[in-house]
Protein backbone atom coordinates (compact mmCIF):
# COMPACT_ATOMS: atom_id res chain seq x y z
CA UNK A 1 0.00 0.00 0.00
CA UNK A 2 1.64 3.25 -0.96
CA UNK A 3 1.31 6.64 0.62
CA UNK A 4 -1.72 7.79 -1.32
CA UNK A 5 -3.65 4.65 -0.49
CA UNK A 6 -2.58 4.90 3.13
CA UNK A 7 -3.74 8.48 3.30
CA UNK A 8 -7.06 7.43 1.78
CA UNK A 9 -7.53 4.61 4.29
CA UNK A 10 -6.54 6.86 7.20
CA UNK A 11 -8.98 9.49 6.03
CA UNK A 12 -11.82 7.01 5.52
CA UNK A 13 -11.30 5.32 8.87
CA UNK A 14 -11.13 8.72 10.56
CA UNK A 15 -14.27 9.88 8.78
CA UNK A 16 -16.11 6.66 9.65
CA UNK A 17 -15.17 7.00 13.31
CA UNK A 18 -16.26 10.65 13.30
CA UNK A 19 -19.52 9.67 11.63
CA UNK A 20 -20.16 7.00 14.24
CA UNK A 21 -19.26 9.39 17.04
CA UNK A 22 -21.42 12.24 15.77
CA UNK A 23 -24.52 10.06 15.34
CA UNK A 24 -25.86 7.51 17.79
CA UNK A 25 -24.19 4.76 15.81
CA UNK A 26 -21.29 4.46 18.23
CA UNK A 27 -23.67 3.57 21.05
CA UNK A 28 -24.23 0.19 19.42
CA UNK A 29 -20.60 -0.71 19.99
CA UNK A 30 -19.05 1.23 22.84
CA UNK A 31 -20.07 3.03 26.01
CA UNK A 32 -21.30 6.59 25.81
CA UNK A 33 -18.30 7.87 27.76
CA UNK A 34 -15.95 6.91 24.95
CA UNK A 35 -17.45 9.49 22.60
CA UNK A 36 -14.93 12.32 23.13
CA UNK A 37 -12.07 9.87 22.68
CA UNK A 38 -13.63 8.49 19.50
CA UNK A 39 -14.11 11.98 18.07
CA UNK A 40 -10.55 12.92 18.97
CA UNK A 41 -9.23 9.74 17.37
CA UNK A 42 -11.21 10.47 14.20
CA UNK A 43 -9.79 13.98 14.03
CA UNK A 44 -6.23 12.75 14.57
CA UNK A 45 -6.62 10.13 11.84
CA UNK A 46 -7.91 12.70 9.39
CA UNK A 47 -5.07 15.05 10.33
CA UNK A 48 -2.61 12.23 9.75
CA UNK A 49 -4.15 11.62 6.32
CA UNK A 50 -3.95 15.29 5.40
CA UNK A 51 -0.39 15.55 6.71
CA UNK A 52 0.63 12.49 4.73
CA UNK A 53 -0.71 13.94 1.50
CA UNK A 54 0.71 17.36 2.27
CA UNK A 55 4.23 16.22 3.04
CA UNK A 56 4.10 13.82 0.13
CA UNK A 57 3.24 16.62 -2.29
CA UNK A 58 5.68 19.06 -0.78
CA UNK A 59 8.48 16.54 -0.66
CA UNK A 60 8.10 15.36 -4.22
CA UNK A 61 10.34 17.83 -5.87
CA UNK A 62 13.01 17.82 -3.19
CA UNK A 63 15.53 15.16 -2.46
CA UNK A 64 14.66 15.81 1.17
CA UNK A 65 11.56 13.67 0.99
CA UNK A 66 11.97 10.54 3.03
CA UNK A 67 10.81 7.43 1.46
CA UNK A 68 9.29 6.05 -1.59
CA UNK A 69 8.14 2.56 -1.86
CA UNK A 70 11.31 1.27 -0.27
CA UNK A 71 9.24 1.00 2.83
CA UNK A 72 5.78 0.15 1.93
CA UNK A 73 3.61 -0.82 4.80
CA UNK A 74 3.11 -4.55 5.07
CA UNK A 75 0.03 -6.03 3.57
CA UNK A 76 -1.57 -6.27 7.00
CA UNK A 77 -2.43 -2.57 6.73
CA UNK A 78 -5.06 -3.51 4.15
CA UNK A 79 -7.05 -5.14 6.92
CA UNK A 80 -7.95 -1.68 8.20
CA UNK A 81 -10.41 -1.58 5.32
CA UNK A 82 -12.51 -4.28 7.00
CA UNK A 83 -13.76 -2.39 10.06
CA UNK A 84 -14.30 0.57 7.77
CA UNK A 85 -16.61 -1.45 5.52
CA UNK A 86 -18.31 -3.09 8.47
CA UNK A 87 -19.01 0.26 10.04
CA UNK A 88 -20.11 2.13 6.92
CA UNK A 89 -21.79 -0.51 4.77
CA UNK A 90 -23.18 -2.97 7.27
CA UNK A 91 -23.39 -1.00 10.56
CA UNK A 92 -24.20 -4.18 12.48
CA UNK A 93 -26.96 -3.80 15.07
CA UNK A 94 -26.36 -3.82 18.80
CA UNK A 95 -26.04 -7.26 20.34
CA UNK A 96 -29.38 -8.97 20.60
CA UNK A 97 -31.11 -12.18 21.52
CA UNK A 98 -28.52 -14.46 19.93
CA UNK A 99 -25.74 -13.23 22.20
CA UNK A 100 -28.11 -12.97 25.13
CA UNK A 101 -29.07 -16.62 25.00
CA UNK A 102 -25.47 -17.72 24.53
CA UNK A 103 -24.32 -16.10 27.75
CA UNK A 104 -25.47 -16.52 31.31
CA UNK A 105 -27.27 -13.73 33.10
CA UNK A 106 -24.75 -11.36 34.64
CA UNK A 107 -27.05 -10.31 37.47
CA UNK A 108 -25.26 -9.79 40.78
CA UNK A 109 -26.62 -8.95 44.20
CA UNK A 110 -27.07 -5.16 44.35
CA UNK A 111 -25.17 -3.29 47.05
CA UNK A 112 -28.24 -1.45 48.29
CA UNK A 113 -31.92 -1.10 47.53
CA UNK A 114 -32.62 2.63 47.51
CA UNK A 115 -36.26 3.54 48.02
CA UNK A 116 -38.26 4.08 44.83
CA UNK A 117 -40.25 7.17 43.79
CA UNK A 118 -44.01 6.99 44.12
CA UNK A 119 -44.86 7.27 40.40
CA UNK A 120 -47.27 4.76 38.92
CA UNK A 121 -46.42 2.85 36.85
CA UNK A 122 -42.86 2.95 38.03
CA UNK A 123 -40.21 2.91 35.28
CA UNK A 124 -37.36 0.59 36.24
CA UNK A 125 -34.32 -0.70 34.42
CA UNK A 126 -34.02 -4.41 33.71
CA UNK A 127 -30.97 -4.63 35.97
CA UNK A 128 -32.69 -2.70 38.76
CA UNK A 129 -35.86 -4.79 38.68
CA UNK A 130 -33.97 -8.07 38.41
CA UNK A 131 -31.68 -7.18 41.32
CA UNK A 132 -34.55 -6.22 43.61
CA UNK A 133 -36.66 -9.19 42.59
CA UNK A 134 -33.98 -11.85 42.73
CA UNK A 135 -31.94 -10.76 45.74
CA UNK A 136 -34.37 -8.78 47.89
CA UNK A 137 -37.43 -10.98 47.40
CA UNK A 138 -39.20 -8.00 45.87
CA UNK A 139 -39.47 -6.18 49.20
CA UNK A 140 -39.28 -2.75 47.59
CA UNK A 141 -41.54 -3.85 44.72
CA UNK A 142 -44.59 -5.02 46.69
CA UNK A 143 -47.89 -3.68 45.33
CA UNK A 144 -46.14 -1.65 42.67
CA UNK A 145 -46.79 -1.59 38.95
CA UNK A 146 -43.43 -1.44 37.22
CA UNK A 147 -42.57 -0.57 33.65
CA UNK A 148 -39.50 -2.29 32.21
CA UNK A 149 -38.01 -1.90 28.72
CA UNK A 150 -35.86 -4.52 27.04
CA UNK A 151 -35.70 -6.78 24.04
CA UNK A 152 -37.29 -10.19 23.69
CA UNK A 153 -35.27 -13.37 23.68
CA UNK A 154 -36.72 -16.86 23.62
CA UNK A 155 -35.18 -19.75 25.53
CA UNK A 156 -34.97 -23.14 23.87
CA UNK A 157 -38.02 -24.33 25.80
CA UNK A 158 -39.93 -21.29 24.56
CA UNK A 159 -39.84 -19.24 27.78
CA UNK A 160 -39.83 -15.56 26.80
CA UNK A 161 -37.23 -13.35 28.43
CA UNK A 162 -36.96 -9.61 28.56
CA UNK A 163 -33.25 -8.82 28.24
CA UNK A 164 -30.98 -5.85 28.42
CA UNK A 165 -27.28 -6.17 27.67
CA UNK A 166 -25.19 -4.55 30.39
CA UNK A 167 -22.07 -2.95 29.03
CA UNK A 168 -18.91 -1.70 30.69
CA UNK A 169 -16.69 -0.57 27.87
CA UNK A 170 -17.60 -2.08 24.53
CA UNK A 171 -19.91 -4.71 23.10
CA UNK A 172 -17.20 -7.33 23.52
CA UNK A 173 -17.75 -7.23 27.27
CA UNK A 174 -21.56 -6.84 27.12
CA UNK A 175 -23.41 -9.35 29.25
CA UNK A 176 -27.12 -10.03 29.39
CA UNK A 177 -29.38 -9.49 32.37
CA UNK A 178 -32.57 -11.47 31.94
CA UNK A 179 -36.08 -11.30 33.35
CA UNK A 180 -38.52 -14.10 32.68
CA UNK A 181 -41.99 -13.07 31.47
CA UNK A 182 -45.16 -14.65 32.77
CA UNK A 183 -48.82 -13.61 32.91
CA UNK A 184 -50.41 -11.79 29.97
CA UNK A 185 -47.67 -12.28 27.43
CA UNK A 186 -48.40 -11.10 23.88
CA UNK A 187 -49.35 -14.14 21.78
CA UNK A 188 -46.66 -13.66 19.18
CA UNK A 189 -43.20 -12.67 20.34
CA UNK A 190 -40.47 -12.01 17.85
CA UNK A 191 -36.94 -12.22 19.24
CA UNK A 192 -35.09 -8.90 19.26
CA UNK A 193 -38.21 -6.74 19.29
CA UNK A 194 -38.10 -4.09 21.96
CA UNK A 195 -40.96 -4.18 24.42
CA UNK A 196 -42.13 -1.91 27.18
CA UNK A 197 -43.64 -4.28 29.67
CA UNK A 198 -45.89 -3.26 32.54
CA UNK A 199 -46.33 -5.76 35.32
CA UNK A 200 -45.95 -6.66 38.95
CA UNK A 201 -43.45 -8.58 41.03
CA UNK A 202 -43.84 -12.32 41.27
CA UNK A 203 -41.84 -14.66 43.47
CA UNK A 204 -41.27 -17.06 40.59
CA UNK A 205 -37.60 -17.57 39.77
CA UNK A 206 -35.55 -19.80 37.59
CA UNK A 207 -31.88 -20.58 37.06
CA UNK A 208 -30.04 -19.66 33.90
CA UNK A 209 -29.03 -22.95 32.29
CA UNK A 210 -25.78 -21.37 31.13
CA UNK A 211 -24.35 -20.28 34.48
CA UNK A 212 -26.96 -21.07 37.15
CA UNK A 213 -27.50 -17.35 37.66
CA UNK A 214 -30.82 -16.24 39.15
CA UNK A 215 -33.50 -15.11 36.71
CA UNK A 216 -36.49 -13.45 38.39
CA UNK A 217 -39.86 -13.27 36.69
CA UNK A 218 -42.25 -10.42 36.04
CA UNK A 219 -46.00 -10.89 36.02
CA UNK A 220 -46.97 -9.06 32.83
CA UNK A 221 -50.20 -7.08 32.66
CA UNK A 222 -49.51 -5.19 29.44
CA UNK A 223 -46.79 -5.06 26.83
CA UNK A 224 -46.30 -2.70 23.92
CA UNK A 225 -43.62 -2.63 21.26
CA UNK A 226 -41.30 0.37 21.42
CA UNK A 227 -38.54 1.56 19.10
CA UNK A 228 -34.95 0.61 19.95
CA UNK A 229 -33.77 3.07 22.60
CA UNK A 230 -31.01 5.59 21.94
CA UNK A 231 -28.56 3.57 23.90
CA UNK A 232 -29.46 -0.09 23.54
CA UNK A 233 -27.17 -1.11 26.41
CA UNK A 234 -27.54 -0.71 30.12
CA UNK A 235 -24.56 1.33 31.21
CA UNK A 236 -25.60 1.83 34.79
CA UNK A 237 -22.76 -0.43 35.90
CA UNK A 238 -19.92 1.79 34.94
CA UNK A 239 -21.28 4.99 36.36
Amino acid at each position, binding site marked *: MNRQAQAAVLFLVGAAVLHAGLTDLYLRYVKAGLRPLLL*AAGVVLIMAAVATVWYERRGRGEAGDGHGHVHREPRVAWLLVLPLLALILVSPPA*LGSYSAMHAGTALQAPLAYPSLPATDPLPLGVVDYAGRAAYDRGRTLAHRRVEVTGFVALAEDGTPYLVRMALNCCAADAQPVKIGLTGHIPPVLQPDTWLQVTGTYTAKQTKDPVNDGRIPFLDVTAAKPVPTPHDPYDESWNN
Partner: protein
Amino acid sequence: MSTTKAVPPGADHRDADAPDGPREQTAAPDGPREQSAAPDGPREQAAAPDGPREQAAASQGWQFNSPLVLVMLLLVLVVAQGPIRRALSAPVMQSWMTVFVAVVCQALPFLVLGVLLSAVIAVFVPPAFFARALPKRPALAVPVAGMAGAVLPGCECASVPVAGALVRRGVTPAAALAFLLSAPAINPIVLTATAVAFPRNPEMVLARFVASLLVACVMGWLWQRLGRADWMRPPARPSHEGLGKGAAFWDSVRHDVMHAGGFLVIGAMAAATLKAVVPATWLHAAAANPVVAILALAVLAVLLSICSEADAFVVSSLTQFSLTARLAFLVVGPMIDLKLFAMQAGTFGRGFALRFAPATFALAILGSVLVGTVLL
Protein backbone atom coordinates in the same frame (compact mmCIF):
# COMPACT_ATOMS: atom_id res chain seq x y z
CA MET B 1 15.66 1.86 -10.15
CA SER B 2 16.29 -1.83 -9.87
CA THR B 3 18.96 -1.34 -7.28
CA THR B 4 16.84 0.59 -4.87
CA LYS B 5 16.07 -2.38 -2.72
CA ALA B 6 19.61 -3.64 -2.43
CA VAL B 7 21.00 -0.35 -1.23
CA PRO B 8 20.95 0.03 2.54
CA PRO B 9 18.15 2.52 2.99
CA GLY B 10 19.93 4.43 5.70
CA ALA B 11 22.60 5.51 3.29
CA ASP B 12 20.96 6.84 0.23
CA HIS B 13 17.45 5.63 -0.24
CA ARG B 14 16.22 9.14 -0.15
CA ASP B 15 18.23 10.08 -3.17
CA ALA B 16 17.33 6.87 -4.85
CA ASP B 17 13.73 7.67 -4.37
CA ALA B 18 13.83 11.22 -5.47
CA PRO B 19 13.08 10.52 -9.13
CA ASP B 20 10.18 8.41 -8.04
CA GLY B 21 7.60 11.02 -8.76
CA PRO B 22 5.16 9.11 -10.94
CA ARG B 23 5.27 6.20 -8.60
CA GLU B 24 2.10 4.59 -9.78
CA GLN B 25 3.34 4.07 -13.28
CA THR B 26 6.62 2.55 -12.26
CA ALA B 27 5.09 0.43 -9.60
CA ALA B 28 3.69 -2.31 -11.78
CA PRO B 29 6.89 -3.32 -13.57
CA ASP B 30 8.60 -3.36 -10.23
CA GLY B 31 7.31 -6.80 -9.41
CA PRO B 32 10.32 -8.89 -10.52
CA ARG B 33 12.75 -6.46 -9.01
CA GLU B 34 11.12 -6.70 -5.67
CA GLN B 35 11.19 -10.46 -5.71
CA SER B 36 14.81 -10.51 -6.60
CA ALA B 37 15.46 -8.43 -3.55
CA ALA B 38 14.21 -11.17 -1.29
CA PRO B 39 17.53 -13.08 -1.05
CA ASP B 40 19.31 -10.32 0.82
CA GLY B 41 17.30 -11.18 3.87
CA PRO B 42 19.79 -10.57 6.69
CA ARG B 43 20.71 -7.12 5.52
CA GLU B 44 17.08 -6.32 5.01
CA GLN B 45 16.33 -7.24 8.55
CA ALA B 46 18.99 -5.01 9.86
CA ALA B 47 18.19 -2.06 7.71
CA ALA B 48 14.65 -2.40 6.58
CA PRO B 49 12.43 -0.01 8.34
CA ASP B 50 9.13 -1.69 8.82
CA GLY B 51 6.82 -4.55 8.81
CA PRO B 52 7.12 -8.18 9.62
CA ARG B 53 9.84 -8.83 7.16
CA GLU B 54 8.57 -12.21 6.12
CA GLN B 55 5.27 -10.73 5.19
CA ALA B 56 6.70 -7.76 3.50
CA ALA B 57 9.06 -9.90 1.51
CA ALA B 58 6.21 -12.11 0.47
CA SER B 59 4.20 -9.12 -0.57
CA GLN B 60 6.92 -7.57 -2.62
CA GLY B 61 5.82 -9.37 -5.72
CA TRP B 62 2.38 -7.96 -5.28
CA GLN B 63 2.81 -4.37 -6.09
CA PHE B 64 0.52 -2.58 -8.32
CA ASN B 65 -1.32 0.56 -7.98
CA SER B 66 -2.69 0.40 -4.45
CA PRO B 67 -4.95 3.47 -4.63
CA LEU B 68 -6.56 1.94 -7.70
CA VAL B 69 -7.04 -1.36 -5.89
CA LEU B 70 -8.57 0.48 -2.98
CA VAL B 71 -11.02 2.34 -5.18
CA MET B 72 -11.98 -0.81 -7.07
CA LEU B 73 -12.47 -2.69 -3.83
CA LEU B 74 -14.69 0.01 -2.40
CA LEU B 75 -16.71 0.25 -5.62
CA VAL B 76 -17.26 -3.49 -5.85
CA LEU B 77 -18.38 -3.62 -2.26
CA VAL B 78 -20.77 -0.72 -2.62
CA VAL B 79 -22.29 -2.26 -5.75
CA ALA B 80 -22.57 -5.68 -4.14
CA GLN B 81 -23.77 -4.48 -0.77
CA GLY B 82 -27.22 -6.05 -1.12
CA PRO B 83 -26.00 -9.64 -1.40
CA ILE B 84 -23.28 -8.99 1.17
CA ARG B 85 -25.81 -7.76 3.67
CA ARG B 86 -28.01 -10.77 3.07
CA ALA B 87 -25.07 -13.07 3.63
CA LEU B 88 -24.26 -11.28 6.86
CA SER B 89 -27.79 -11.27 8.25
CA ALA B 90 -27.52 -14.59 10.12
CA PRO B 91 -27.59 -13.89 13.87
CA VAL B 92 -24.19 -15.42 14.47
CA MET B 93 -22.63 -13.25 11.73
CA GLN B 94 -24.33 -10.12 13.06
CA SER B 95 -23.12 -10.80 16.53
CA TRP B 96 -19.63 -11.44 15.14
CA MET B 97 -19.64 -8.17 13.23
CA THR B 98 -20.92 -6.19 16.19
CA VAL B 99 -18.20 -7.50 18.47
CA PHE B 100 -15.59 -7.01 15.77
CA VAL B 101 -16.56 -3.40 15.16
CA ALA B 102 -16.88 -2.84 18.89
CA VAL B 103 -13.38 -4.09 19.66
CA VAL B 104 -11.91 -1.94 16.90
CA CYS B 105 -13.91 1.15 17.91
CA GLN B 106 -13.03 0.73 21.53
CA ALA B 107 -9.33 0.13 20.92
CA LEU B 108 -8.83 2.75 18.22
CA PRO B 109 -8.81 5.83 20.48
CA PHE B 110 -6.27 4.18 22.77
CA LEU B 111 -4.22 3.02 19.82
CA VAL B 112 -4.20 6.58 18.50
CA LEU B 113 -3.18 7.85 21.93
CA GLY B 114 -0.34 5.34 22.07
CA VAL B 115 0.71 6.16 18.54
CA LEU B 116 0.79 9.89 19.31
CA LEU B 117 2.84 9.28 22.46
CA SER B 118 5.18 7.02 20.56
CA ALA B 119 5.60 9.67 17.86
CA VAL B 120 6.36 12.26 20.54
CA ILE B 121 8.98 9.96 22.03
CA ALA B 122 10.43 9.21 18.62
CA VAL B 123 10.63 12.80 17.44
CA PHE B 124 10.67 15.22 20.34
CA VAL B 125 12.30 13.38 23.25
CA PRO B 126 16.07 13.09 22.86
CA PRO B 127 17.53 9.64 23.57
CA ALA B 128 19.70 11.20 26.27
CA PHE B 129 16.56 11.80 28.32
CA PHE B 130 15.97 8.09 28.84
CA ALA B 131 19.62 7.48 29.58
CA ARG B 132 19.33 10.00 32.41
CA ALA B 133 15.87 9.00 33.61
CA LEU B 134 16.54 5.28 33.92
CA PRO B 135 19.19 3.71 36.15
CA LYS B 136 22.30 2.62 34.28
CA ARG B 137 22.10 -0.97 35.45
CA PRO B 138 19.43 -2.84 33.52
CA ALA B 139 18.56 -4.87 36.61
CA LEU B 140 17.50 -1.62 38.30
CA ALA B 141 16.02 -0.07 35.19
CA VAL B 142 13.48 -2.90 34.95
CA PRO B 143 11.53 -2.15 38.16
CA VAL B 144 11.77 1.59 37.54
CA ALA B 145 10.29 1.16 34.06
CA GLY B 146 7.69 -1.21 35.48
CA MET B 147 6.57 1.42 37.97
CA ALA B 148 6.60 4.05 35.24
CA GLY B 149 3.84 2.04 33.61
CA ALA B 150 1.53 3.50 36.23
CA VAL B 151 1.52 6.85 34.46
CA LEU B 152 0.30 5.71 31.04
CA PRO B 153 -3.45 6.09 31.23
CA GLY B 154 -5.16 3.68 28.94
CA CYS B 155 -5.35 0.08 27.94
CA GLU B 156 -2.96 -2.33 26.34
CA CYS B 157 -3.34 -1.02 22.80
CA ALA B 158 -1.51 2.14 23.80
CA SER B 159 1.43 0.41 25.39
CA VAL B 160 2.68 -1.58 22.39
CA PRO B 161 3.59 1.38 20.16
CA VAL B 162 5.03 3.26 23.14
CA ALA B 163 7.25 0.32 24.11
CA GLY B 164 8.37 0.04 20.49
CA ALA B 165 9.34 3.71 20.48
CA LEU B 166 11.22 3.28 23.76
CA VAL B 167 13.32 0.44 22.33
CA ARG B 168 14.08 2.53 19.25
CA ARG B 169 15.16 5.36 21.49
CA GLY B 170 17.78 3.18 23.09
CA VAL B 171 16.00 2.09 26.25
CA THR B 172 17.16 -1.37 27.39
CA PRO B 173 14.70 -3.84 25.88
CA ALA B 174 14.28 -5.51 29.28
CA ALA B 175 13.08 -2.21 30.78
CA ALA B 176 10.84 -1.42 27.81
CA LEU B 177 9.25 -4.85 28.09
CA ALA B 178 8.60 -4.40 31.81
CA PHE B 179 6.86 -1.16 30.90
CA LEU B 180 4.92 -2.87 28.10
CA LEU B 181 3.58 -5.47 30.53
CA SER B 182 2.89 -3.31 33.55
CA ALA B 183 1.42 -0.16 31.96
CA PRO B 184 -1.97 -1.59 30.94
CA ALA B 185 -2.54 -3.25 34.31
CA ILE B 186 -1.38 -0.84 37.00
CA ASN B 187 -2.41 2.59 35.79
CA PRO B 188 -4.90 4.48 37.96
CA ILE B 189 -7.81 4.17 35.51
CA VAL B 190 -7.59 0.40 35.43
CA LEU B 191 -7.10 0.08 39.17
CA THR B 192 -10.10 2.32 39.82
CA ALA B 193 -12.21 0.22 37.47
CA THR B 194 -11.09 -2.88 39.35
CA ALA B 195 -12.09 -1.34 42.67
CA VAL B 196 -15.52 -0.45 41.26
CA ALA B 197 -16.01 -3.92 39.84
CA PHE B 198 -15.10 -5.69 43.08
CA PRO B 199 -16.82 -3.54 45.72
CA ARG B 200 -16.76 -6.38 48.24
CA ASN B 201 -13.15 -7.39 47.67
CA PRO B 202 -10.96 -4.29 47.78
CA GLU B 203 -7.93 -6.56 48.27
CA MET B 204 -8.41 -7.48 44.61
CA VAL B 205 -7.00 -4.08 43.61
CA LEU B 206 -3.85 -4.58 45.64
CA ALA B 207 -3.48 -8.15 44.41
CA ARG B 208 -3.80 -7.03 40.81
CA PHE B 209 -1.26 -4.27 41.27
CA VAL B 210 1.27 -6.48 43.04
CA ALA B 211 0.88 -9.48 40.75
CA SER B 212 1.06 -7.42 37.55
CA LEU B 213 4.10 -5.45 38.66
CA LEU B 214 5.79 -8.61 39.87
CA VAL B 215 5.24 -10.49 36.62
CA ALA B 216 6.31 -7.46 34.55
CA CYS B 217 9.58 -7.13 36.47
CA VAL B 218 10.32 -10.85 36.41
CA MET B 219 9.72 -10.90 32.65
CA GLY B 220 12.07 -7.94 32.29
CA TRP B 221 14.82 -9.61 34.30
CA LEU B 222 14.22 -12.87 32.49
CA TRP B 223 14.64 -11.14 29.15
CA GLN B 224 17.80 -9.49 30.38
CA ARG B 225 19.29 -12.83 31.43
CA LEU B 226 18.01 -15.16 28.74
CA GLY B 227 16.82 -12.92 25.95
CA ARG B 228 18.91 -12.74 22.81
CA ALA B 229 19.06 -9.62 20.76
CA ASP B 230 18.38 -11.44 17.52
CA TRP B 231 15.04 -12.72 18.82
CA MET B 232 13.72 -9.22 18.77
CA ARG B 233 13.68 -7.67 15.38
CA PRO B 234 14.86 -4.17 16.11
CA PRO B 235 11.76 -2.11 15.55
CA ALA B 236 13.49 0.09 13.03
CA ARG B 237 11.55 2.47 10.90
CA PRO B 238 12.04 5.07 8.26
CA SER B 239 14.84 7.29 9.44
CA HIS B 240 13.57 10.71 10.23
CA GLU B 241 16.83 12.41 9.45
CA GLY B 242 16.45 15.14 6.94
CA LEU B 243 12.76 15.51 7.71
CA GLY B 244 11.35 18.41 9.62
CA LYS B 245 9.95 17.66 13.04
CA GLY B 246 6.39 17.96 11.77
CA ALA B 247 6.97 15.65 8.84
CA ALA B 248 8.75 13.12 11.03
CA PHE B 249 5.96 13.27 13.61
CA TRP B 250 3.16 12.63 11.15
CA ASP B 251 5.21 10.04 9.32
CA SER B 252 5.57 8.15 12.57
CA VAL B 253 1.85 8.49 13.30
CA ARG B 254 0.89 7.26 9.83
CA HIS B 255 3.27 4.34 9.98
CA ASP B 256 2.18 3.20 13.43
CA VAL B 257 -1.54 3.53 12.79
CA MET B 258 -1.39 1.56 9.55
CA HIS B 259 0.84 -1.04 11.06
CA ALA B 260 -0.53 -1.57 14.56
CA GLY B 261 -4.04 -0.94 13.24
CA GLY B 262 -3.76 -3.85 10.83
CA PHE B 263 -2.71 -6.16 13.62
CA LEU B 264 -5.43 -4.80 15.85
CA VAL B 265 -7.94 -5.85 13.18
CA ILE B 266 -6.56 -9.40 13.22
CA GLY B 267 -6.90 -9.54 17.00
CA ALA B 268 -10.40 -8.09 16.88
CA MET B 269 -11.46 -10.75 14.37
CA ALA B 270 -10.10 -13.51 16.58
CA ALA B 271 -11.78 -12.11 19.68
CA ALA B 272 -15.10 -11.68 17.87
CA THR B 273 -14.95 -15.26 16.59
CA LEU B 274 -14.46 -16.60 20.08
CA LYS B 275 -17.09 -14.41 21.64
CA ALA B 276 -19.65 -15.38 19.02
CA VAL B 277 -18.87 -19.07 18.73
CA VAL B 278 -17.66 -20.46 22.06
CA PRO B 279 -20.58 -21.50 24.27
CA ALA B 280 -20.45 -20.07 27.78
CA THR B 281 -21.53 -23.40 29.25
CA TRP B 282 -17.94 -24.62 28.97
CA LEU B 283 -16.94 -22.08 31.57
CA HIS B 284 -19.48 -23.38 33.98
CA ALA B 285 -18.01 -26.85 33.81
CA ALA B 286 -14.48 -25.48 34.27
CA ALA B 287 -15.28 -23.60 37.46
CA ALA B 288 -15.76 -26.78 39.45
CA ASN B 289 -12.06 -27.72 39.68
CA PRO B 290 -9.84 -25.05 41.27
CA VAL B 291 -6.81 -25.75 39.05
CA VAL B 292 -8.82 -26.02 35.87
CA ALA B 293 -10.67 -22.87 36.89
CA ILE B 294 -7.44 -20.83 36.99
CA LEU B 295 -6.26 -22.20 33.67
CA ALA B 296 -9.67 -21.71 32.08
CA LEU B 297 -9.91 -18.06 33.06
CA ALA B 298 -6.31 -17.43 32.00
CA VAL B 299 -7.02 -18.91 28.58
CA LEU B 300 -10.28 -17.00 28.41
CA ALA B 301 -8.42 -13.75 29.09
CA VAL B 302 -6.15 -14.46 26.13
CA LEU B 303 -9.00 -15.39 23.83
CA LEU B 304 -11.46 -12.64 24.71
CA SER B 305 -8.93 -9.80 24.36
CA ILE B 306 -11.02 -7.42 26.44
CA CYS B 307 -9.67 -3.96 27.09
CA SER B 308 -7.93 -3.81 30.45
CA GLU B 309 -10.24 -1.02 31.54
CA ALA B 310 -13.24 -3.30 31.23
CA ASP B 311 -11.96 -6.75 32.06
CA ALA B 312 -12.58 -6.38 35.79
CA PHE B 313 -16.30 -5.85 35.17
CA VAL B 314 -16.52 -8.94 33.02
CA VAL B 315 -14.69 -11.23 35.37
CA SER B 316 -16.37 -9.93 38.52
CA SER B 317 -19.62 -11.42 37.26
CA LEU B 318 -18.07 -14.88 36.93
CA THR B 319 -18.87 -15.51 40.57
CA GLN B 320 -18.63 -19.27 40.27
CA PHE B 321 -14.85 -18.91 39.95
CA SER B 322 -12.48 -18.42 42.88
CA LEU B 323 -10.95 -14.99 43.47
CA THR B 324 -7.51 -16.36 42.55
CA ALA B 325 -8.82 -17.62 39.22
CA ARG B 326 -10.34 -14.21 38.57
CA LEU B 327 -7.07 -12.56 39.54
CA ALA B 328 -5.33 -14.73 36.94
CA PHE B 329 -7.76 -13.37 34.35
CA LEU B 330 -6.95 -9.79 35.37
CA VAL B 331 -3.19 -10.37 35.32
CA VAL B 332 -2.99 -12.38 32.11
CA GLY B 333 -5.41 -10.29 30.04
CA PRO B 334 -3.52 -6.98 29.91
CA MET B 335 -0.19 -8.75 29.33
CA ILE B 336 -1.03 -11.17 26.61
CA ASP B 337 -4.12 -11.69 24.51
CA LEU B 338 -4.85 -12.35 20.87
CA LYS B 339 -4.81 -8.75 19.73
CA LEU B 340 -1.73 -7.97 21.82
CA PHE B 341 0.06 -10.99 20.37
CA ALA B 342 -0.73 -9.80 16.86
CA MET B 343 0.43 -6.29 17.69
CA GLN B 344 3.61 -7.51 19.41
CA ALA B 345 4.42 -9.73 16.45
CA GLY B 346 3.99 -6.71 14.22
CA THR B 347 6.12 -4.40 16.33
CA PHE B 348 8.91 -6.67 17.57
CA GLY B 349 8.80 -9.53 15.08
CA ARG B 350 7.15 -12.91 15.04
CA GLY B 351 10.17 -14.71 16.51
CA PHE B 352 9.98 -12.43 19.52
CA ALA B 353 6.24 -12.80 20.04
CA LEU B 354 6.37 -16.59 19.78
CA ARG B 355 8.87 -16.77 22.65
CA PHE B 356 7.66 -13.84 24.70
CA ALA B 357 3.95 -14.63 24.74
CA PRO B 358 4.07 -18.18 26.19
CA ALA B 359 6.62 -17.12 28.81
CA THR B 360 4.45 -14.18 29.81
CA PHE B 361 1.39 -16.40 29.94
CA ALA B 362 3.04 -19.00 32.20
CA LEU B 363 4.61 -16.40 34.49
CA ALA B 364 1.40 -14.41 34.76
CA ILE B 365 -0.48 -17.51 35.93
CA LEU B 366 2.29 -18.37 38.37
CA GLY B 367 2.43 -14.81 39.67
CA SER B 368 -1.30 -14.58 40.20
CA VAL B 369 -1.44 -17.94 41.99
CA LEU B 370 1.37 -16.81 44.30
CA VAL B 371 -0.10 -13.40 45.02
CA GLY B 372 -3.59 -14.87 45.23
CA THR B 373 -2.51 -17.37 47.86
CA VAL B 374 -0.92 -14.64 49.95
CA LEU B 375 -3.42 -11.80 49.55
CA LEU B 376 -6.80 -13.26 48.70
